[in-house]
């Protein structure tokens, strides 16, 4: 048994004793309704049960006893009197509390509610301050919300009597130190002469410059018990949200004027003499040296904070316009192409000297390519923090409690990919919060924690990055999806679909199962657009879900958009490439095989029938099919579909060139690449081919 259990047990015993005392007091009160002792006894019993009950988690008990206590408090101070009805109802309340306390306490909740409202009515005038069963303690410790690092100026002038309330200002200063980097300057100018001072009064006051990310409330909490009697000013003097391009710090005089330690006129007068401002102030006695020092400290601390930010930004990176990078990547792309030609030519010439040079160039080119692409890589973390804000705002708007947990913020992706990921991710997260995560009440009723969680993870997997958005919400409703898909004529009523196929329907254009349109999501233009954007990035998207447990969306993305590993194939005299990541395997297809399929485009791959798209027909390439063709089996959206080609050439480093404006809308092609011999190969847009057949 853990300690909390031990305490709860101790409370149960105590409460039973108190209830017995209450009962006998009530019975005596019946005889003697004005006995102050008995009334006090009943009040205290209720008060203790309430206070300790809430401590040990008996909130229902606490809520009820609070109402009873309120009435007895009024009896105690004479504004209400003991009636038979009150005694009856209180006895009843006692019985109910006993039930609530017993471990298997089956209690009629409506009876409890009724008693609560009865006692509320008895309490006159009605006190509409309900008992909080939560906690709102000043010494929070639970307030851990991190904000941006900010710099605060705090002037703390405690009441002279502070020592007499048992408070040592030193401990408060220490608490401030625990919040962050802290400079403390004590002002001693108010300490009187030795014979006129009262050693038990506090004459010292402080200027504190504190740099913390804990927020202003954490600072206020430090002073919670002394704030009424002390002079406390807290000002934000620097915010890390400030632009680091233009460091701003105030002049010494401005700080002093702002603090009220110097008048503007005095400042201007001094400024006319040309000497160090601080020196003049001290010499002329216009400001106390400790105050000048405090202002100097502030100035220095702000400067440090800003310099630190600048330094860290400067040391970690240099800023380069992204167009310059794009140019570089393009040049490297061309170099890769030329290098391939060089290798090819050298191979043909069979000149060892040239071959050596070609190999050297190949090695250097690939290193250059890798590091150039690396420059474009950015950690995905910057987008993550944006999403945290989104989650916070959305959950507030929808009155849900949602926490976002992110993992793998350091995972790097091509800058363009990250930028273009933003909208799809926003949409997915919105959906999770709007449709996935249930309201706190619903969650609680389902035995889940009130607060829902959205996990956002990024991780490397080979040459791709896998993003996972997982929520612990209600999960997808298969029946609703099915019904909707039938209604939208996306599937036949008789269709038998696996879960995966069923969930994939969500990505069909115009599909939305939300019962009503909210301002957040559910306009039905969602997931199909998301899917398109991901595919435009040459990525794939997948969804799984467990009813009641949540939904997981997995996005797989290539590391970069500029150069891909691909498979090169040939049809007639034309070369084509497709992303290697989509290719599962290649199998031969003979004319005999085709005959056996009776004109249907199905290939038998180790017993399972896989549909294929004959690309020769698809692209109207004329010529006749060779005797032996090849089926490149791809996996798109969980389905295996083959592409029929003449022959498979092999793997190829493909530098992607976008198609000219005229060809941009051609279905089934996503770009082109230049081969080693200078000819052009088209890049197949496999998902689109599959979709359009």
């Amino acid at each position, binding site marked *: 048994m853990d300690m909390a259990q031990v305490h709860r047990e101790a409370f149960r015993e105590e409460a039973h004793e108190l209830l017995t005392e209450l009962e006998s007091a009530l019975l005596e009160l019946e005889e003697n309704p004005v006995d102050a002792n008995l009334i006090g006894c009943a009040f205290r019993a209720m008060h203790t049960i309430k206070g300790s009950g809430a401590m040990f988690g008996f909130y229902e008990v606490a809520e009820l006893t609070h109402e009873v206590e309120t009435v007895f408090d009024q009896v105690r101070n004479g504004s209400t009197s003991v009636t038979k009805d009150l005694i009856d109802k209180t006895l009843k309340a006692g019985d109910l509390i006993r039930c609530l306390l017993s471990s298997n306490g089956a209690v009629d909740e409506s009876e409890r509610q009724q008693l609560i409202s009865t006692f509320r009515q008895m309490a006159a005038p009605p006190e509409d301050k309900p*008992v909080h069963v939560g906690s709102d303690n*000043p010494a929070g410790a639970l307030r851990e919300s991190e904000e941006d690092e900010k710099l605060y100026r705090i002037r703390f002038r405690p009441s002279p009597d502070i020592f007499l309330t*048992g408070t040592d200002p030193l401990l408060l200063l220490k608490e401030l130190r625990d919040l962050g980097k802290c400079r403390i300057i004590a002002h001693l100018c108010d300490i009187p002469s030795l014979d006129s001072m009262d050693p038990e009064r506090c004459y010292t006051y402080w200027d504190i410059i504190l740099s913390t990310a804990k927020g202003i409330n954490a600072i206020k909490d430090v002073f919670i*018990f002394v704030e009424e009697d002390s002079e406390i000013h807290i000002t934000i003097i620097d915010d890390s949200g400030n632009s680091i391009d233009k460091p701003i710090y105030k002049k010494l005089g401005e700080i002093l004027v702002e603090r009220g330690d110097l008048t503007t006129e005095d400042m201007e007068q001094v400024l006319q003499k040309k000497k160090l401002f601080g020196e003049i102030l001290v010499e002329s006695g216009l400001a106390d040296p400790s105050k000048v020092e405090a202002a100097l400290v502030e100035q220095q601390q702000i400067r440090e904070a800003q310099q630190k930010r600048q330094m860290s930004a400067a040391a970690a990176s240099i800023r380069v316009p992204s167009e310059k990078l794009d140019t570089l990547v393009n040049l490297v792309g061309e170099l890769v192409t030329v290098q391939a030609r060089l290798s090819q030519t050298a191979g043909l010439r069979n000149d060892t000297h040239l071959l050596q040079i070609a190999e050297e160039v190949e090695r250097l080119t690939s290193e250059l390519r890798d590091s150039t692409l690396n420059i474009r890589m950015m950690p995905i973390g910057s987008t993550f923090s944006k999403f945290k804000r989104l989650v916070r705002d959305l959950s507030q708007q929808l009155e849900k409690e949602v926490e976002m947990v992110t993992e793998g913020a350091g995972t790097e992706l091509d800058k363009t990919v990250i930028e273009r990921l933003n909208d799809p991710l926003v949409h997915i997260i919105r959906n999770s919060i709007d449709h996935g995560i249930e309201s706190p009440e619903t969650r609680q009723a389902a035995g889940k924690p009130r607060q829902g969680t959205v996990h956002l993870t990024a991780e490397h997997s080979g040459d791709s990055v896998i993003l996972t958005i997982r929520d612990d919400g209600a999960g997808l409703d298969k029946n609703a999806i099915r019904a909707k898909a039938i209604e939208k004529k996306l599937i036949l009523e008789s269709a038998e679909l696996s879960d995966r196929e069923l969930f994939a329907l969500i990505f069909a254009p115009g599909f939305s199962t939300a019962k009503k349109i909210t301002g957040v999501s559910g306009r039905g233009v969602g997931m199909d657009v998301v899917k398109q954007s991901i595919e435009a990035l040459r990525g794939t998207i997948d969804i799984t879900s467990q009813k009641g447990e949540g939904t997981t969306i997995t996005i797989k993305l290539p590391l970069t958009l500029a150069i891909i590993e691909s498979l090169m194939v040939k049809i007639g005299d034309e070369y084509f490439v497709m992303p290697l990541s989509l290719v599962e395997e290649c199998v031969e297809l003979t004319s005999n095989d085709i005959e056996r399929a009776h004109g249907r485009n199905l290939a038998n791959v180790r017993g399972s029938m896989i549909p294929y798209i004959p690309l020769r027909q698809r692209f109207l390439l004329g010529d006749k099919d060779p005797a032996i063709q090849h089926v490149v089996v791809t996996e798109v959206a969980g389905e295996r579909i083959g592409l029929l080609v003449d022959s498979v050439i092999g793997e190829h480093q493909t530098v992607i060139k976008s198609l000219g404006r005229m060809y941009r809308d051609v279905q089934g092609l996503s770009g082109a690449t230049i081969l080693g011999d200078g000819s052009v190969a088209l890049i197949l847009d496999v998902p689109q081919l599959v979709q359009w057949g």
Partner: protein
Amino acid sequence: MAHTLLIVDDSASMRQMVSFTLKDAGYEVISANNGKDALAKINNAKISMVITDLNMPEMDGIELIRQLRGLPGFKFTPIVMLTTESQDSKKMAGKQAGASGWIVKPFKPQQLLDTIKKFVK
């Protein structure tokens, strides 16, 4: 040397929970049922801090604070009261009697320890 804290509450379970939390954190604890009991149990002990409930039989918390402040050894001793939030007026009365701070019930053990750290080194 460990600090000795005085905890005064008429609820046995509260006393048990608070004592356990404090002892676990390395403090010495003297516990008392009510104000009168507390005054009787002090016995010249050097008390570093007092934590007292307000509503108690015999002598309530406010009166205890008032009397403690009158004792020579308690002029500067931190005294923290345990209140329930419906007792805002009590909070004020307690401060006037000389209380240093308050903790609102219900609280978590860590909140109790955090509050103590405001007053005891």
